[in-house]
């Protein structure tokens, strides 16, 4: 396996040249990306920086004889946790900007100083400690890293594993409880809506749909009102927008045609008069 060859230590406990190249390629990227988390103005950019750091960490784990942890790093951290972060970012609002108001005066500079002090202390401890010669994991990773890890986890750490399982169940329940919302008003289902409509019947509300325009008359245009069974035009059947714009056809004229037919004449008896009126309106439009 390539990873095993790359991860093998020399006799002096030094890493191989290939691993050194890998480290010096990834380490600056990781530090720059972590600076992105610290300085990025938008939360989404910060999240992308953290994802970069985590994927680079997965590479370093594989290089350090921990391929199982490398895969878990990608699947759990990058795949699950950071995606959860992005989901919540979308929920809360991507444009939720950082407030620049300092609640404690000078807190920002004190925090940066504290962070640098922490770096100096931690790095100083790591540099000054006299390490024994690194052993390497060639002996411990037999036959393979995941199998050797399984022996340790289900052997020495079996109880801890069960406790962690209980923790995961509790966390899932906790998230459910925390995001649960009590219903303040009863839910409006089909039955209650039906009852409300029937009760509104006394106030002149309609149970049936409105008549479609024009279908009972000689015209089926949208601007012609439908005629009821009694020959009267139904004003409600014309779209409200057409009425507001004044584009509704004259309902009375179309009703009058019915009356003329009922009286024994022809519907178009007074056609010349209508044509004259139409000519007048078209002339007005031309001017």
């Amino acid at each position, binding site marked *: 396996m390539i990873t095993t060859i790359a*991860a093998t230590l020399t006799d002096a*406990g030094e*890493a191989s*040249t290939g*691993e050194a190249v890998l*480290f010096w390629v990834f380490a600056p990227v*990781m530090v720059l990306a*972590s*600076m992105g*988390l*610290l300085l990025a103005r938008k*939360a989404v950019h*910060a999240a992308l920086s*953290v994802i970069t*750091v985590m994927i680079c*960490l997965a590479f*370093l*784990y594989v290089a*350090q004889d*921990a391929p199982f942890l490398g895969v*878990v*790093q990608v699947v759990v*951290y990058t795949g699950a*946790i950071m995606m*959860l*972060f992005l989901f919540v970012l979308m*929920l*809360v609002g991507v444009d*939720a*900007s*950082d*407030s620049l108001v300092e*609640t404690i005066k000078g*807190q920002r500079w004190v925090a*940066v100083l504290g*962070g*640098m002090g*922490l*770096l100096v202390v*931690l790095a100083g401890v*790591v*540099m000054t400690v006299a*390490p024994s010669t*690194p*052993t390497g*994991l060639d*002996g*411990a990773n037999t036959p393979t890293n995941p199998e050797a890890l399984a022996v340790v*986890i289900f052997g*020495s*750490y079996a109880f801890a594993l069960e406790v962690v399982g209980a*923790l*995961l169940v*509790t*966390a*899932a329940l*906790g*998230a459910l409880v*925390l*995001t649960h919302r009590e219903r303040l008003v009863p839910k409006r289902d089909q039955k209650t809506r039906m009852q409300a409509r029937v009760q509104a019947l006394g106030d002149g509300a309609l149970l049936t749909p409105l008549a479609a325009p024009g279908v009972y008359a000689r015209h089926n245009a949208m601007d012609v009102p439908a005629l009821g069974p009694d020959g009267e035009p139904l004003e409600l059947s014309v779209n409200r927008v057409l009425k507001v714009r004044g584009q509704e056809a004259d309902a009375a004229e179309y009703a009058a045609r019915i009356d003329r037919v009922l009286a024994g004449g022809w519907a178009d008896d007074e056609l010349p008069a209508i044509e004259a009126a139409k000519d007048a309106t078209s002339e007005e439009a031309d001017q």
Partner: protein
Amino acid sequence: MSLMNYLVLSTVLFSVGATTVLVRRNAIIAFMGIEMMLNATNLALVTFARINGNLHGQVLAFFVMVVAAAEVVVGLAIIVAIYRTRRSASIDDVNLLKDVRDPA
């Protein structure tokens, strides 16, 4: 290359994460700083496992990942719950426990 380089990188990442928690006011970004600190300790644990030649460090890093997953679920649920009531994801706006009585 000495394995100490991994530990120094881990301390750098840890410090940047801690500074992020202290400086940033957006609750989600501060939370990501905590995740960065956990990742830095994981890198240190994996390196320690390699130095000592046994797998207990890797097992510990594995448990850190599991606990971090549980912690993120609860933490983000809290952030969402606060956002619902206060319409804000800023840490400064969560001040209901502050004593706001008139000093006079």
